[in-house]
Protein backbone atom coordinates (compact mmCIF):
# COMPACT_ATOMS: atom_id res chain seq x y z
CA UNK A 1 0.00 0.00 0.00
CA UNK A 2 2.67 2.48 1.07
CA UNK A 3 5.01 1.15 -1.61
CA UNK A 4 2.49 1.99 -4.31
CA UNK A 5 2.10 5.53 -2.99
CA UNK A 6 5.88 5.96 -2.81
CA UNK A 7 6.19 4.77 -6.38
CA UNK A 8 3.62 7.35 -7.45
CA UNK A 9 5.54 10.05 -5.60
CA UNK A 10 8.69 9.02 -7.49
CA UNK A 11 6.87 9.20 -10.83
CA UNK A 12 5.49 12.64 -10.00
CA UNK A 13 8.97 13.90 -9.18
CA UNK A 14 10.33 12.55 -12.46
CA UNK A 15 7.50 14.17 -14.39
CA UNK A 16 8.09 17.47 -12.60
CA UNK A 17 11.72 17.53 -13.77
CA UNK A 18 11.34 16.49 -17.39
CA UNK A 19 14.64 17.84 -18.70
CA UNK A 20 16.63 16.36 -15.86
CA UNK A 21 14.90 13.00 -16.13
CA UNK A 22 15.44 13.06 -19.89
CA UNK A 23 19.16 13.69 -19.54
CA UNK A 24 19.52 10.90 -17.01
CA UNK A 25 17.56 8.64 -19.32
CA UNK A 26 19.91 9.49 -22.18
CA UNK A 27 22.95 8.40 -20.19
CA UNK A 28 21.36 5.05 -19.42
CA UNK A 29 20.05 4.56 -22.96
CA UNK A 30 23.52 5.06 -24.45
CA UNK A 31 25.06 2.63 -21.99
CA UNK A 32 22.46 -0.11 -22.40
CA UNK A 33 22.30 0.35 -26.17
CA UNK A 34 26.01 -0.23 -26.59
CA UNK A 35 26.00 -3.33 -24.42
CA UNK A 36 22.88 -4.72 -26.08
CA UNK A 37 24.25 -4.11 -29.59
CA UNK A 38 27.33 -6.14 -28.78
CA UNK A 39 25.43 -8.91 -26.99
CA UNK A 40 22.83 -9.25 -29.77
CA UNK A 41 25.42 -9.19 -32.52
CA UNK A 42 27.55 -11.83 -30.81
CA UNK A 43 24.48 -13.94 -30.13
CA UNK A 44 23.45 -13.66 -33.78
CA UNK A 45 26.89 -14.65 -34.91
CA UNK A 46 26.95 -17.66 -32.63
CA UNK A 47 23.47 -18.75 -33.73
CA UNK A 48 24.55 -18.53 -37.36
CA UNK A 49 27.63 -20.64 -36.73
CA UNK A 50 25.54 -23.18 -34.87
CA UNK A 51 23.07 -23.39 -37.72
CA UNK A 52 25.84 -23.81 -40.26
CA UNK A 53 27.29 -26.63 -38.21
CA UNK A 54 23.94 -28.31 -37.80
CA UNK A 55 24.34 -29.74 -41.30
CA UNK A 56 26.64 -32.22 -39.61
CA UNK A 57 24.21 -34.53 -37.93
CA UNK A 58 24.77 -35.53 -34.30
CA UNK A 59 26.17 -38.89 -35.36
CA UNK A 60 28.61 -37.57 -37.95
CA UNK A 61 32.33 -36.97 -37.54
CA UNK A 62 35.01 -35.66 -39.84
CA UNK A 63 38.45 -37.07 -40.44
CA UNK A 64 41.05 -34.65 -41.75
CA UNK A 65 44.78 -34.26 -41.95
CA UNK A 66 44.43 -30.86 -40.28
CA UNK A 67 41.10 -30.43 -38.59
CA UNK A 68 41.83 -27.35 -36.60
CA UNK A 69 44.94 -25.50 -35.54
CA UNK A 70 44.72 -23.11 -32.61
CA UNK A 71 48.24 -21.75 -32.96
CA UNK A 72 50.78 -21.11 -35.64
CA UNK A 73 53.10 -23.74 -34.15
CA UNK A 74 50.34 -26.32 -34.13
CA UNK A 75 49.64 -25.55 -37.78
CA UNK A 76 53.30 -25.82 -38.75
CA UNK A 77 53.50 -29.20 -37.02
CA UNK A 78 50.34 -30.53 -38.59
CA UNK A 79 51.21 -29.44 -42.11
CA UNK A 80 53.95 -32.12 -42.17
CA UNK A 81 51.37 -34.84 -41.77
CA UNK A 82 50.74 -37.41 -44.47
CA UNK A 83 47.53 -36.86 -46.43
CA UNK A 84 44.44 -38.99 -46.01
CA UNK A 85 43.70 -40.91 -49.17
CA UNK A 86 40.92 -42.86 -50.83
CA UNK A 87 42.66 -45.95 -49.52
CA UNK A 88 42.06 -44.80 -45.96
CA UNK A 89 38.39 -44.40 -46.79
CA UNK A 90 38.20 -47.89 -48.25
CA UNK A 91 39.88 -49.35 -45.15
CA UNK A 92 37.48 -47.60 -42.80
CA UNK A 93 34.49 -48.65 -44.87
CA UNK A 94 35.68 -52.25 -44.61
CA UNK A 95 36.94 -52.30 -41.03
CA UNK A 96 34.60 -50.05 -39.09
CA UNK A 97 31.39 -51.94 -38.47
CA UNK A 98 29.88 -49.11 -36.45
CA UNK A 99 30.30 -46.74 -39.40
CA UNK A 100 27.09 -46.47 -41.37
CA UNK A 101 28.35 -44.34 -44.26
CA UNK A 102 31.81 -43.19 -45.23
CA UNK A 103 31.82 -40.35 -47.68
CA UNK A 104 34.85 -38.88 -49.35
CA UNK A 105 35.51 -35.49 -50.76
CA UNK A 106 38.37 -34.21 -52.88
CA UNK A 107 38.86 -30.59 -53.84
CA UNK A 108 40.52 -28.82 -56.71
CA UNK A 109 40.26 -25.49 -58.49
CA UNK A 110 39.06 -25.23 -62.08
CA UNK A 111 37.76 -22.80 -64.65
CA UNK A 112 33.98 -22.90 -65.02
CA UNK A 113 32.18 -21.51 -68.03
CA UNK A 114 28.57 -20.98 -69.02
CA UNK A 115 28.11 -19.43 -72.47
CA UNK A 116 30.20 -16.26 -72.42
CA UNK A 117 30.57 -16.17 -68.66
CA UNK A 118 33.78 -17.61 -67.31
CA UNK A 119 35.08 -17.93 -63.75
CA UNK A 120 38.56 -19.01 -62.77
CA UNK A 121 39.61 -20.85 -59.63
CA UNK A 122 36.22 -22.21 -58.74
CA UNK A 123 36.36 -24.94 -56.09
CA UNK A 124 35.29 -28.27 -57.56
CA UNK A 125 34.53 -31.05 -55.08
CA UNK A 126 34.36 -34.66 -56.06
CA UNK A 127 32.04 -36.42 -53.65
CA UNK A 128 30.49 -39.81 -53.33
CA UNK A 129 26.70 -39.94 -53.45
CA UNK A 130 26.74 -40.81 -49.75
CA UNK A 131 28.09 -37.35 -48.97
CA UNK A 132 24.65 -35.85 -49.23
CA UNK A 133 23.40 -38.29 -46.67
CA UNK A 134 26.25 -37.78 -44.26
CA UNK A 135 26.46 -34.03 -44.50
CA UNK A 136 23.05 -32.45 -44.80
CA UNK A 137 23.17 -30.24 -47.86
CA UNK A 138 20.03 -28.21 -48.38
CA UNK A 139 18.39 -28.41 -51.79
CA UNK A 140 17.00 -25.28 -53.43
CA UNK A 141 16.07 -26.99 -56.69
CA UNK A 142 16.86 -30.13 -58.66
CA UNK A 143 18.61 -33.07 -57.00
CA UNK A 144 21.98 -34.52 -56.03
CA UNK A 145 23.76 -37.12 -58.13
CA UNK A 146 22.97 -40.74 -57.40
CA UNK A 147 25.27 -43.65 -56.62
CA UNK A 148 24.58 -44.96 -60.14
CA UNK A 149 25.66 -41.69 -61.71
CA UNK A 150 28.82 -41.85 -59.63
CA UNK A 151 29.54 -45.42 -60.73
CA UNK A 152 28.91 -44.52 -64.39
CA UNK A 153 31.09 -41.41 -64.16
CA UNK A 154 28.28 -39.17 -65.37
CA UNK A 155 29.20 -35.52 -66.06
CA UNK A 156 26.66 -33.94 -63.76
CA UNK A 157 27.18 -31.00 -61.39
CA UNK A 158 25.43 -29.75 -58.29
CA UNK A 159 26.24 -26.08 -57.79
CA UNK A 160 26.21 -23.70 -54.85
CA UNK A 161 23.90 -20.71 -54.71
CA UNK A 162 26.85 -18.33 -55.15
CA UNK A 163 27.95 -20.06 -58.35
CA UNK A 164 24.36 -19.98 -59.66
CA UNK A 165 24.26 -16.26 -58.93
CA UNK A 166 27.56 -15.72 -60.74
CA UNK A 167 26.77 -17.75 -63.85
CA UNK A 168 23.01 -17.88 -64.22
CA UNK A 169 21.76 -14.40 -63.40
CA UNK A 170 18.04 -14.55 -64.20
CA UNK A 171 18.27 -17.95 -65.93
CA UNK A 172 16.99 -21.30 -64.65
CA UNK A 173 20.23 -23.31 -64.34
CA UNK A 174 18.63 -26.79 -64.31
CA UNK A 175 19.59 -28.83 -67.37
CA UNK A 176 22.01 -26.18 -68.65
CA UNK A 177 25.45 -27.15 -69.78
CA UNK A 178 28.55 -25.73 -68.14
CA UNK A 179 32.16 -26.59 -68.77
CA UNK A 180 34.65 -27.37 -66.04
CA UNK A 181 38.18 -27.05 -67.33
CA UNK A 182 36.82 -27.59 -70.85
CA UNK A 183 34.72 -30.65 -70.05
CA UNK A 184 30.95 -30.47 -70.39
CA UNK A 185 28.71 -31.00 -67.35
CA UNK A 186 24.95 -30.79 -66.92
CA UNK A 187 23.61 -28.87 -63.94
CA UNK A 188 21.24 -31.13 -61.98
CA UNK A 189 20.73 -29.23 -58.73
CA UNK A 190 21.32 -26.05 -56.78
CA UNK A 191 22.14 -25.72 -53.11
CA UNK A 192 20.11 -23.51 -50.84
CA UNK A 193 21.66 -20.17 -49.93
CA UNK A 194 24.02 -20.87 -47.07
CA UNK A 195 24.63 -18.92 -43.89
CA UNK A 196 27.44 -16.38 -43.67
CA UNK A 197 29.91 -18.99 -42.48
CA UNK A 198 28.79 -21.76 -44.84
CA UNK A 199 29.57 -20.55 -48.32
CA UNK A 200 32.88 -18.82 -47.82
CA UNK A 201 33.87 -19.29 -51.44
CA UNK A 202 33.58 -15.94 -53.16
CA UNK A 203 32.95 -17.48 -56.60
CA UNK A 204 30.91 -20.41 -55.32
CA UNK A 205 31.63 -24.10 -55.79
CA UNK A 206 30.34 -27.21 -57.54
CA UNK A 207 29.97 -30.85 -56.53
CA UNK A 208 30.56 -33.57 -59.11
CA UNK A 209 30.57 -37.38 -58.65
CA UNK A 210 33.84 -38.72 -57.21
CA UNK A 211 34.45 -41.11 -60.08
CA UNK A 212 33.89 -38.37 -62.65
CA UNK A 213 36.34 -36.24 -60.66
CA UNK A 214 38.97 -38.99 -60.77
CA UNK A 215 38.48 -39.40 -64.51
CA UNK A 216 39.07 -35.69 -65.14
CA UNK A 217 41.55 -34.68 -62.44
CA UNK A 218 43.19 -38.00 -61.61
CA UNK A 219 43.35 -39.88 -58.30
CA UNK A 220 43.29 -37.23 -55.53
CA UNK A 221 46.40 -37.12 -53.39
CA UNK A 222 44.43 -36.03 -50.37
CA UNK A 223 40.78 -36.27 -49.41
CA UNK A 224 38.49 -35.39 -46.56
CA UNK A 225 36.33 -37.96 -44.91
CA UNK A 226 32.92 -37.54 -43.35
CA UNK A 227 31.68 -40.58 -41.48
CA UNK A 228 28.22 -41.24 -40.14
CA UNK A 229 28.02 -43.70 -37.27
CA UNK A 230 25.17 -46.21 -37.11
CA UNK A 231 23.66 -44.23 -34.23
CA UNK A 232 24.37 -41.30 -31.93
CA UNK A 233 25.14 -43.75 -29.11
CA UNK A 234 27.68 -45.56 -31.28
CA UNK A 235 29.44 -42.32 -32.29
CA UNK A 236 32.27 -42.61 -29.75
CA UNK A 237 32.96 -46.25 -30.54
CA UNK A 238 32.83 -45.59 -34.27
CA UNK A 239 35.38 -42.83 -33.81
CA UNK A 240 37.62 -45.18 -31.81
CA UNK A 241 37.39 -47.88 -34.49
CA UNK A 242 38.26 -45.31 -37.15
CA UNK A 243 41.23 -44.10 -35.12
CA UNK A 244 42.61 -47.61 -34.77
CA UNK A 245 42.24 -48.33 -38.48
CA UNK A 246 43.94 -45.05 -39.46
CA UNK A 247 46.77 -45.43 -36.92
CA UNK A 248 47.48 -48.92 -38.29
CA UNK A 249 47.37 -47.76 -41.90
CA UNK A 250 49.61 -44.74 -41.17
CA UNK A 251 51.99 -46.78 -38.94
CA UNK A 252 51.68 -44.51 -35.93
CA UNK A 253 53.72 -45.98 -33.04
CA UNK A 254 51.57 -46.77 -30.00
CA UNK A 255 53.27 -44.15 -27.82
CA UNK A 256 52.80 -41.32 -30.35
CA UNK A 257 49.67 -39.21 -30.72
CA UNK A 258 47.38 -39.39 -33.76
CA UNK A 259 48.75 -37.79 -36.90
CA UNK A 260 45.24 -36.84 -38.08
CA UNK A 261 42.25 -35.03 -36.56
CA UNK A 262 38.79 -36.40 -35.82
CA UNK A 263 36.17 -33.73 -35.34
CA UNK A 264 32.52 -33.64 -34.39
CA UNK A 265 30.19 -30.67 -34.77
CA UNK A 266 30.13 -30.38 -30.97
CA UNK A 267 33.90 -30.18 -30.82
CA UNK A 268 34.02 -27.50 -33.52
CA UNK A 269 31.32 -25.58 -31.70
CA UNK A 270 33.28 -25.85 -28.44
CA UNK A 271 36.33 -24.30 -30.05
CA UNK A 272 34.31 -21.51 -31.65
CA UNK A 273 32.49 -20.87 -28.39
CA UNK A 274 35.76 -20.66 -26.50
CA UNK A 275 36.91 -18.06 -28.99
CA UNK A 276 33.71 -16.00 -28.97
CA UNK A 277 33.65 -16.14 -25.18
CA UNK A 278 36.91 -14.21 -25.02
CA UNK A 279 35.62 -11.83 -27.69
CA UNK A 280 32.40 -11.40 -25.77
CA UNK A 281 34.12 -10.53 -22.50
CA UNK A 282 36.39 -8.04 -24.22
CA UNK A 283 33.63 -6.31 -26.18
CA UNK A 284 31.13 -6.29 -23.33
CA UNK A 285 33.86 -4.98 -21.05
CA UNK A 286 34.56 -2.09 -23.37
CA UNK A 287 30.92 -1.25 -23.96
CA UNK A 288 30.25 -1.47 -20.21
CA UNK A 289 32.33 1.65 -19.74
CA UNK A 290 29.52 3.69 -21.26
CA UNK A 291 27.15 1.92 -18.90
CA UNK A 292 29.26 2.95 -15.93
CA UNK A 293 29.29 6.50 -17.25
CA UNK A 294 25.50 6.30 -17.53
CA UNK A 295 25.36 5.05 -13.94
CA UNK A 296 27.51 7.93 -12.74
CA UNK A 297 25.15 10.33 -14.51
CA UNK A 298 22.28 8.76 -12.58
CA UNK A 299 24.15 9.07 -9.30
CA UNK A 300 25.21 12.64 -9.99
CA UNK A 301 21.72 13.80 -10.84
CA UNK A 302 20.21 11.94 -7.91
CA UNK A 303 22.71 13.64 -5.59
CA UNK A 304 21.69 17.04 -6.96
CA UNK A 305 18.06 16.08 -6.68
CA UNK A 306 18.45 14.99 -3.05
CA UNK A 307 20.26 18.19 -2.09
CA UNK A 308 17.72 20.33 -3.90
CA UNK A 309 14.86 18.58 -2.19
CA UNK A 310 16.34 18.62 1.31
CA UNK A 311 13.43 20.70 2.54
CA UNK A 312 10.90 18.35 0.98
CA UNK A 313 12.63 15.48 2.77
CA UNK A 314 12.42 17.45 6.03
CA UNK A 315 8.71 18.07 5.53
CA UNK A 316 8.04 14.43 4.75
CA UNK A 317 10.00 13.33 7.82
CA UNK A 318 8.20 15.79 10.08
CA UNK A 319 4.93 14.25 8.89
CA UNK A 320 6.06 10.76 9.82
CA UNK A 321 8.02 9.39 6.85
CA UNK A 322 10.44 6.73 8.03
CA UNK A 323 13.92 6.20 6.64
CA UNK A 324 12.77 3.35 4.43
CA UNK A 325 9.98 5.50 2.97
CA UNK A 326 12.44 8.19 1.87
CA UNK A 327 14.93 5.55 0.73
CA UNK A 328 12.34 3.79 -1.42
CA UNK A 329 11.02 7.06 -2.84
CA UNK A 330 14.44 8.01 -4.22
CA UNK A 331 15.37 4.47 -5.17
CA UNK A 332 12.14 4.18 -7.17
CA UNK A 333 13.14 7.35 -9.00
CA UNK A 334 16.53 6.03 -10.07
CA UNK A 335 15.13 2.57 -10.81
CA UNK A 336 12.33 3.96 -12.96
CA UNK A 337 14.77 6.07 -14.96
CA UNK A 338 17.22 3.23 -15.49
CA UNK A 339 14.55 0.64 -16.30
CA UNK A 340 12.82 2.91 -18.83
CA UNK A 341 16.26 3.76 -20.23
CA UNK A 342 17.04 0.05 -20.22
CA UNK A 343 13.94 -0.89 -22.20
CA UNK A 344 14.66 1.82 -24.78
CA UNK A 345 18.31 0.75 -24.85
CA UNK A 346 17.35 -2.89 -25.44
CA UNK A 347 15.15 -1.93 -28.39
CA UNK A 348 17.73 0.47 -29.86
CA UNK A 349 20.60 -1.95 -29.29
CA UNK A 350 18.68 -4.74 -30.96
CA UNK A 351 17.84 -2.55 -33.96
CA UNK A 352 21.46 -1.43 -34.22
CA UNK A 353 22.68 -5.03 -34.13
CA UNK A 354 20.11 -6.04 -36.72
CA UNK A 355 21.24 -3.27 -39.05
CA UNK A 356 24.87 -4.26 -38.58
CA UNK A 357 24.18 -7.93 -39.14
CA UNK A 358 22.10 -7.32 -42.27
CA UNK A 359 25.26 -5.99 -43.91
CA UNK A 360 26.85 -9.41 -43.55
CA UNK A 361 23.67 -11.30 -44.39
CA UNK A 362 22.97 -12.46 -40.91
CA UNK A 363 19.66 -12.37 -39.16
CA UNK A 364 19.20 -11.98 -35.44
CA UNK A 365 16.15 -12.48 -33.31
CA UNK A 366 15.51 -10.91 -29.91
CA UNK A 367 16.41 -13.50 -27.32
CA UNK A 368 14.85 -13.75 -23.90
CA UNK A 369 18.33 -14.07 -22.43
CA UNK A 370 19.50 -10.79 -23.99
CA UNK A 371 16.35 -8.96 -22.89
CA UNK A 372 16.56 -10.22 -19.32
CA UNK A 373 20.26 -9.41 -19.28
CA UNK A 374 19.51 -5.86 -20.45
CA UNK A 375 16.80 -5.40 -17.83
CA UNK A 376 18.97 -6.88 -15.10
CA UNK A 377 21.88 -4.61 -16.05
CA UNK A 378 19.78 -1.44 -16.14
CA UNK A 379 17.99 -2.33 -12.91
CA UNK A 380 21.34 -3.13 -11.35
CA UNK A 381 22.75 0.21 -12.44
CA UNK A 382 19.72 1.99 -10.95
CA UNK A 383 20.13 0.17 -7.65
CA UNK A 384 23.89 0.44 -7.45
CA UNK A 385 24.17 4.09 -8.36
CA UNK A 386 20.89 5.10 -6.75
CA UNK A 387 21.40 3.55 -3.33
CA UNK A 388 23.95 6.07 -2.08
CA UNK A 389 21.91 9.23 -2.85
CA UNK A 390 18.78 7.52 -1.52
CA UNK A 391 20.54 6.57 1.71
CA UNK A 392 21.83 10.11 2.05
CA UNK A 393 18.26 11.35 1.75
CA UNK A 394 16.89 8.76 4.18
CA UNK A 395 19.44 9.59 6.88
CA UNK A 396 18.89 13.34 6.92
CA UNK A 397 18.05 14.75 10.32
CA UNK A 398 14.56 16.24 10.23
CA UNK A 399 15.51 19.48 12.04
CA UNK A 400 18.45 20.22 9.75
CA UNK A 401 16.51 19.28 6.64
CA UNK A 402 13.59 21.52 7.62
CA UNK A 403 15.81 24.56 8.18
CA UNK A 404 17.70 24.03 4.90
CA UNK A 405 17.46 27.05 2.61
Amino acid sequence: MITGSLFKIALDALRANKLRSGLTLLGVIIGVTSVMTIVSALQGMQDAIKEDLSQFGPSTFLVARIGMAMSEQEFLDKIKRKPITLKSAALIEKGCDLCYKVSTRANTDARVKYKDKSLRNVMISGVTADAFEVVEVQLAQGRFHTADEDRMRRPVAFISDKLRENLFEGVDPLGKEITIDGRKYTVIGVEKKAGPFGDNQERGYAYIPMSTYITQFGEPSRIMLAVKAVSVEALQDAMDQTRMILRAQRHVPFDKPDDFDILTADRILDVINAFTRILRFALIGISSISLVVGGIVVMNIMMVSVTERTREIGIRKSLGARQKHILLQFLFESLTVTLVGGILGIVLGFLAAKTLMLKIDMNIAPSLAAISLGLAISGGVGLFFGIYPAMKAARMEPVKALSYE
Partner: protein
Amino acid sequence: MALIETTDLWKSYQMGAETIHALRGVSIQIGKGEYVAIMGPSGSGKSTLMNLIGCLDTPSKGDYFLNGKLVSGMNDDELAAIRNREIGFVFQTFNLLPRATALHNVELPLIYNGTPAKERTEKARIALTKVQLEDRMLHKPNELSGGQRQRVAIARALVNNPSIILADEPTGNLDSKTSEDIMSLFDHLYSQGNTIITVTHERDIANHAHRVLSILDGQIASDQAGARKAALTH
Protein backbone atom coordinates in the same frame (compact mmCIF):
# COMPACT_ATOMS: atom_id res chain seq x y z
CA MET B 1 -0.69 11.75 33.97
CA ALA B 2 0.39 14.77 31.96
CA LEU B 3 0.35 14.57 28.19
CA ILE B 4 3.85 16.03 28.05
CA GLU B 5 6.32 15.59 30.85
CA THR B 6 9.97 16.53 30.61
CA THR B 7 12.51 16.23 33.37
CA ASP B 8 15.80 18.10 33.25
CA LEU B 9 16.03 18.31 29.45
CA TRP B 10 19.37 19.41 28.09
CA LYS B 11 20.34 20.05 24.50
CA SER B 12 23.96 20.87 23.69
CA TYR B 13 25.69 21.56 20.40
CA GLN B 14 29.35 21.41 19.61
CA MET B 15 30.44 24.57 17.80
CA GLY B 16 34.12 24.13 17.10
CA ALA B 17 35.86 23.89 20.45
CA GLU B 18 32.94 25.45 22.29
CA THR B 19 29.91 23.60 23.64
CA ILE B 20 26.69 25.58 23.40
CA HIS B 21 23.85 24.61 25.70
CA ALA B 22 20.61 25.53 23.95
CA LEU B 23 18.55 24.01 26.78
CA ARG B 24 19.74 23.77 30.37
CA GLY B 25 17.53 21.51 32.39
CA VAL B 26 13.97 22.18 31.29
CA SER B 27 11.28 20.43 33.29
CA ILE B 28 7.71 21.07 32.24
CA GLN B 29 4.35 19.36 32.36
CA ILE B 30 1.56 20.05 29.92
CA GLY B 31 -1.82 18.44 30.32
CA LYS B 32 -4.34 17.27 27.76
CA GLY B 33 -6.53 20.06 26.38
CA GLU B 34 -4.18 22.86 27.38
CA TYR B 35 -3.36 25.84 25.17
CA VAL B 36 0.21 26.80 25.94
CA ALA B 37 2.43 29.49 24.44
CA ILE B 38 6.18 29.17 24.68
CA MET B 39 7.64 32.67 24.57
CA GLY B 40 11.13 33.95 24.40
CA PRO B 41 13.47 36.12 22.37
CA SER B 42 15.41 34.58 19.52
CA GLY B 43 18.27 32.44 20.74
CA SER B 44 16.48 31.67 23.98
CA GLY B 45 16.09 27.99 23.10
CA LYS B 46 12.37 28.01 22.40
CA SER B 47 12.79 26.51 18.94
CA THR B 48 15.04 23.82 20.35
CA LEU B 49 12.40 23.01 22.95
CA MET B 50 9.76 22.89 20.25
CA ASN B 51 11.88 20.50 18.15
CA LEU B 52 12.27 18.23 21.20
CA ILE B 53 8.57 18.34 22.07
CA GLY B 54 7.78 17.67 18.41
CA CYS B 55 10.12 14.65 18.37
CA LEU B 56 12.08 16.16 15.51
CA ASP B 57 15.19 16.00 17.66
CA THR B 58 16.42 14.10 20.69
CA PRO B 59 17.72 15.63 23.93
CA SER B 60 21.37 15.37 24.95
CA LYS B 61 20.24 14.60 28.50
CA GLY B 62 17.01 14.21 30.41
CA ASP B 63 13.72 12.36 29.90
CA TYR B 64 10.72 13.22 27.81
CA PHE B 65 7.46 11.34 28.25
CA LEU B 66 4.73 11.85 25.69
CA ASN B 67 1.40 10.20 26.51
CA GLY B 68 3.24 8.13 29.11
CA LYS B 69 5.80 6.84 26.61
CA LEU B 70 9.47 7.61 27.03
CA VAL B 71 10.34 9.10 23.64
CA SER B 72 13.76 10.56 24.52
CA GLY B 73 15.45 7.19 23.91
CA MET B 74 13.71 6.32 20.66
CA ASN B 75 15.43 5.87 17.33
CA ASP B 76 14.76 7.72 14.11
CA ASP B 77 11.99 5.47 12.83
CA GLU B 78 10.19 5.20 16.16
CA LEU B 79 10.22 8.99 16.40
CA ALA B 80 8.83 9.20 12.87
CA ALA B 81 5.92 6.99 13.92
CA ILE B 82 5.31 9.22 16.99
CA ARG B 83 5.39 12.37 14.82
CA ASN B 84 2.95 10.76 12.47
CA ARG B 85 0.41 9.71 15.09
CA GLU B 86 0.78 12.16 17.97
CA ILE B 87 1.89 15.49 16.55
CA GLY B 88 0.49 17.95 14.03
CA PHE B 89 2.97 20.60 12.95
CA VAL B 90 2.17 24.11 11.81
CA PHE B 91 5.26 25.96 10.63
CA GLN B 92 5.99 29.63 10.14
CA THR B 93 6.88 29.03 6.49
CA PHE B 94 3.92 26.63 6.02
CA ASN B 95 6.21 23.88 4.64
CA LEU B 96 3.80 22.66 2.02
CA LEU B 97 5.04 20.67 -0.96
CA PRO B 98 4.96 23.28 -3.74
CA ARG B 99 4.05 20.91 -6.57
CA ALA B 100 1.29 19.09 -4.76
CA THR B 101 -2.35 20.19 -4.48
CA ALA B 102 -3.80 21.24 -1.14
CA LEU B 103 -5.56 17.88 -0.99
CA HIS B 104 -2.38 15.92 -1.60
CA ASN B 105 -0.48 17.99 0.98
CA VAL B 106 -3.10 17.15 3.57
CA GLU B 107 -3.00 13.47 2.59
CA LEU B 108 0.76 13.18 3.23
CA PRO B 109 0.66 12.11 6.91
CA LEU B 110 -1.91 9.45 5.99
CA ILE B 111 0.34 8.05 3.25
CA TYR B 112 3.05 7.29 5.78
CA ASN B 113 0.76 5.33 8.09
CA GLY B 114 -0.60 3.24 5.27
CA THR B 115 -4.15 4.60 5.17
CA PRO B 116 -5.88 3.25 2.02
CA ALA B 117 -6.15 5.80 -0.81
CA LYS B 118 -9.93 6.18 -0.66
CA GLU B 119 -10.06 6.73 3.08
CA ARG B 120 -7.10 9.08 2.80
CA THR B 121 -8.84 11.39 0.35
CA GLU B 122 -11.99 11.31 2.42
CA LYS B 123 -10.17 12.31 5.63
CA ALA B 124 -8.21 15.04 3.83
CA ARG B 125 -11.46 16.49 2.44
CA ILE B 126 -12.99 16.59 5.90
CA ALA B 127 -9.89 18.30 7.33
CA LEU B 128 -9.88 20.91 4.55
CA THR B 129 -13.57 21.53 5.10
CA LYS B 130 -12.86 22.19 8.78
CA VAL B 131 -10.56 25.06 7.76
CA GLN B 132 -13.05 26.36 5.16
CA LEU B 133 -10.98 25.41 2.15
CA GLU B 134 -13.39 22.93 0.58
CA ASP B 135 -13.41 24.98 -2.64
CA ARG B 136 -9.61 25.20 -2.89
CA MET B 137 -8.73 21.52 -2.57
CA LEU B 138 -7.15 21.12 -5.98
CA HIS B 139 -5.16 24.35 -5.88
CA LYS B 140 -1.42 24.29 -5.50
CA PRO B 141 0.25 26.38 -2.78
CA ASN B 142 1.32 29.10 -5.23
CA GLU B 143 -2.33 29.54 -6.19
CA LEU B 144 -3.31 30.21 -2.57
CA SER B 145 -2.89 33.25 -0.31
CA GLY B 146 -0.65 33.11 2.76
CA GLY B 147 -3.59 32.66 5.08
CA GLN B 148 -5.00 29.89 2.90
CA ARG B 149 -1.64 28.15 2.82
CA GLN B 150 -1.43 28.23 6.59
CA ARG B 151 -4.94 26.81 6.77
CA VAL B 152 -3.86 23.96 4.48
CA ALA B 153 -1.00 23.34 6.90
CA ILE B 154 -3.44 23.35 9.82
CA ALA B 155 -5.69 20.89 8.00
CA ARG B 156 -2.64 18.70 7.44
CA ALA B 157 -1.82 18.95 11.17
CA LEU B 158 -5.36 17.91 12.07
CA VAL B 159 -5.89 15.11 9.58
CA ASN B 160 -4.43 12.33 11.75
CA ASN B 161 -6.21 13.44 14.96
CA PRO B 162 -2.94 14.06 16.79
CA SER B 163 -2.52 14.49 20.56
CA ILE B 164 -0.81 17.86 20.13
CA ILE B 165 -0.91 20.64 17.57
CA LEU B 166 2.50 22.22 17.59
CA ALA B 167 2.70 25.64 15.96
CA ASP B 168 6.02 27.39 15.42
CA GLU B 169 5.47 31.13 14.85
CA PRO B 170 2.30 30.28 12.93
CA THR B 171 1.60 33.89 11.98
CA GLY B 172 5.19 35.00 11.41
CA ASN B 173 4.72 35.28 7.66
CA LEU B 174 1.18 36.69 7.69
CA ASP B 175 -0.27 40.20 7.86
CA SER B 176 -2.12 41.22 11.02
CA LYS B 177 -5.62 40.68 9.60
CA THR B 178 -4.80 37.17 8.41
CA SER B 179 -2.96 36.50 11.66
CA GLU B 180 -6.18 37.24 13.56
CA ASP B 181 -8.09 34.78 11.36
CA ILE B 182 -5.53 32.05 11.94
CA MET B 183 -5.44 32.70 15.69
CA SER B 184 -9.23 32.50 15.93
CA LEU B 185 -8.99 29.19 14.09
CA PHE B 186 -6.62 28.01 16.83
CA ASP B 187 -9.04 29.33 19.46
CA HIS B 188 -11.77 27.32 17.80
CA LEU B 189 -9.65 24.16 17.71
CA TYR B 190 -8.83 24.66 21.40
CA SER B 191 -12.49 25.02 22.25
CA GLN B 192 -13.06 21.64 20.58
CA GLY B 193 -10.63 20.01 23.01
CA ASN B 194 -7.38 19.99 21.04
CA THR B 195 -4.09 20.45 22.86
CA ILE B 196 -2.21 23.37 21.31
CA ILE B 197 1.33 24.55 21.85
CA THR B 198 2.49 27.66 20.02
CA VAL B 199 6.01 28.99 19.97
CA THR B 200 6.17 32.72 19.47
CA HIS B 201 7.98 35.88 20.37
CA GLU B 202 4.85 38.05 19.99
CA ARG B 203 2.88 38.91 23.10
CA ASP B 204 -0.37 39.28 21.06
CA ILE B 205 -0.11 35.72 19.85
CA ALA B 206 0.83 34.40 23.28
CA ASN B 207 -2.22 36.15 24.73
CA HIS B 208 -4.46 33.65 22.96
CA ALA B 209 -3.07 30.88 25.12
CA HIS B 210 -4.22 30.16 28.64
CA ARG B 211 -0.73 29.46 29.86
CA VAL B 212 2.52 31.14 28.91
CA LEU B 213 5.92 29.57 29.44
CA SER B 214 8.70 32.11 29.15
CA ILE B 215 12.08 30.78 28.25
CA LEU B 216 15.38 32.59 28.58
CA ASP B 217 18.91 31.30 28.07
CA GLY B 218 17.70 27.74 27.79
CA GLN B 219 15.74 27.72 31.05
CA ILE B 220 12.13 28.28 32.00
CA ALA B 221 12.00 31.83 33.35
CA SER B 222 8.33 31.90 34.23
CA ASP B 223 5.19 29.78 33.98
CA GLN B 224 2.12 32.00 34.15
CA ALA B 225 -1.53 31.96 33.34
CA GLY B 226 -2.11 33.67 30.00
CA ALA B 227 -4.12 36.82 29.42
CA ARG B 228 -7.15 34.79 28.47
CA LYS B 229 -7.05 32.78 31.67
CA ALA B 230 -6.33 35.92 33.72
CA ALA B 231 -9.29 37.66 32.13
CA LEU B 232 -11.52 34.72 32.96
CA THR B 233 -10.50 34.56 36.65
CA HIS B 234 -10.88 38.29 37.20
